[in-house]
């Protein structure tokens, strides 16, 4: 049980580390983990980042999160409003630096599926839909995918449907953009010439082999693979205070 309590916080901390100061960052719908990660980043190492809420507030002073990531209380004391269509324009201009996206399936090239399990013509399961993935995945300098259930069913050889574009579905120009995958087992990126997924850090308690076993393709391992840094007590307390109702745990069900 200790592990299952700590995993969300470990992931949130890892997600927050993907933001560097002065980055302009947006989160989308159904995103308690990104909201917490962005809040942690802003209150720790990236105080000058531009925080654009999916609820449209800019740089809000977030005191706590809610079941909906668009809850307008997440705009508390914001300095301005900035609509999603404006944020998307920013993305088209290349000025949205970091975006957090979810996925039901991901493959070795980073293709994500949020559309259907099975075939599109006769789906076994109709998923909720990709929202901004197909638009933002190729054009955003850094996309962070968070996945709370790392298994051979979610990390697959080939996704059933390409909602968000992995590197083999991108133009050369868009291959330059970075992707990071943060799961409940480790942190993966694509920092190799072939742009295939590789394990960069494993969460404490999981071995490289365990993670590879839970992955549906032959997961590369970065030469400098290491352990995912554990957030200090201050950060864990911050996360707890921002999420008193444990909304972040719903994704780990």
């Amino acid at each position: 049980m200790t592990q299952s309590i700590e995993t969300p916080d470990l992931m949130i901390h890892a997600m927050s580390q993907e933001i560097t100061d002065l980055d302009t960052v947006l989160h989308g719908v159904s995103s308690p983990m990104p909201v917490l990660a962005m809040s942690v980043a802003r209150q720790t190492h990236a105080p000058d980042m531009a925080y654009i809420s999916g609820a449209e507030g800019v740089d809000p002073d977030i005191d706590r999160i809610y079941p909906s990531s668009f809850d307008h209380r997440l705009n508390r004391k914001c300095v301005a409003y900035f609509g999603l269509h404006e944020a998307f324009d920013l993305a088209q201009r290349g000025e949205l630096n970091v975006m957090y996206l979810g996925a039901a399936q991901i493959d070795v090239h980073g293709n994500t599926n949020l559309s259907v399990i099975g075939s599109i013509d006769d789906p076994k399961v109709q998923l909720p839909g990709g929202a901004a993935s197909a638009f933002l995945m190729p054009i955003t300098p850094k996309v962070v995918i968070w996945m709370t259930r790392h298994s051979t069913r979610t990390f697959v050889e080939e996704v059933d449907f390409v909602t968000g574009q992995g590197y083999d579905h991108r133009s050369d120009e868009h291959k330059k953009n970075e992707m990071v995958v943060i799961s409940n087992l480790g942190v993966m990126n694509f920092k190799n010439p072939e742009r295939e997924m590789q394990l960069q850090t494993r969460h404490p308690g999981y071995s490289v082999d365990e993670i590879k076993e839970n992955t549906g393709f032959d997961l590369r391992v970065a030469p400098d693979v290491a352990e995912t840094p554990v957030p200090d007590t201050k950060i864990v307390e911050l996360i707890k205070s921002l999420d008193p109702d444990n909304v972040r745990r719903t994704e780990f069900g």
Partner: protein
Amino acid sequence: MRKVLSSLAKTANLVADGDLVTFGGATFHRAPMAFVREMVRQGKKELNLVDREPAIDFDLLIGAGCVSMVRAGMIAFEIFGMAPNFRRKSKTREIIVKEGACQPIISGFRAAAMGLPSLPVKGMLGSDLLEISEIVGGQKLFEDPFTGEKMIAVRAIEPDIAVIHAQKADEFGNARIEGPVYEDVIKAKAAKKVVVTAEEIVSNDEFRKMPEATTLPHFLVDAVVHAPNGAYPCSCCNYYEVDYDHIEEYLKAATDDRFDEYLKQYVHEERVT
């Protein structure tokens, strides 16, 4: 300015079966739920719904049998999980799902708002969604006339009607939205008909005291309805928050096959002001 103040019943009558319909708000926020319930009571059929990220508004209409087609970037109940009626009826093929992506849907609305047949967007290339959209005619690959860059043209989305819940309106159709506006102005410009439901009907003078706060000028609006609590159980900024307990009750009813009971209690027996 002419007076366009009307009733829920009369304005819901503006929706014809088969219409392409969109709503203001996003997920559980400022959706025009009073209007949605009135549509259910009036037994609308074969509606074609389109929005970026709808939730209970679309799901309620789907559950009540009013819908034949849905186009959305995502339809879900956020952390509560799948939209239950959407999930069930998409599986049984009672509704046709045309999954879009947020930006092409927003840009489709924008094209219509700008009076253009289509609008270019970036991204999208390489996604299987593009293929599907190309087949259904919503998106097309083209080359920019100047740079030759591969772009996606998104076809204009011009809803027959857009229904928007606002905090304040006057009897002429001027409307003020407080807090996040989402794509509501774009939708109002894009749609052929626009209905505003409002928490409060205020005097025209109230608008003239703060014209910079007016979100929709009267000439974009065809009818106004006084609908206090008109977004409930969704939130309405400065008026009330999401009733998350009600959302869970809805989910439970739909999942436990007691959706008819929900409809009876909260829709058909609702007392309309």
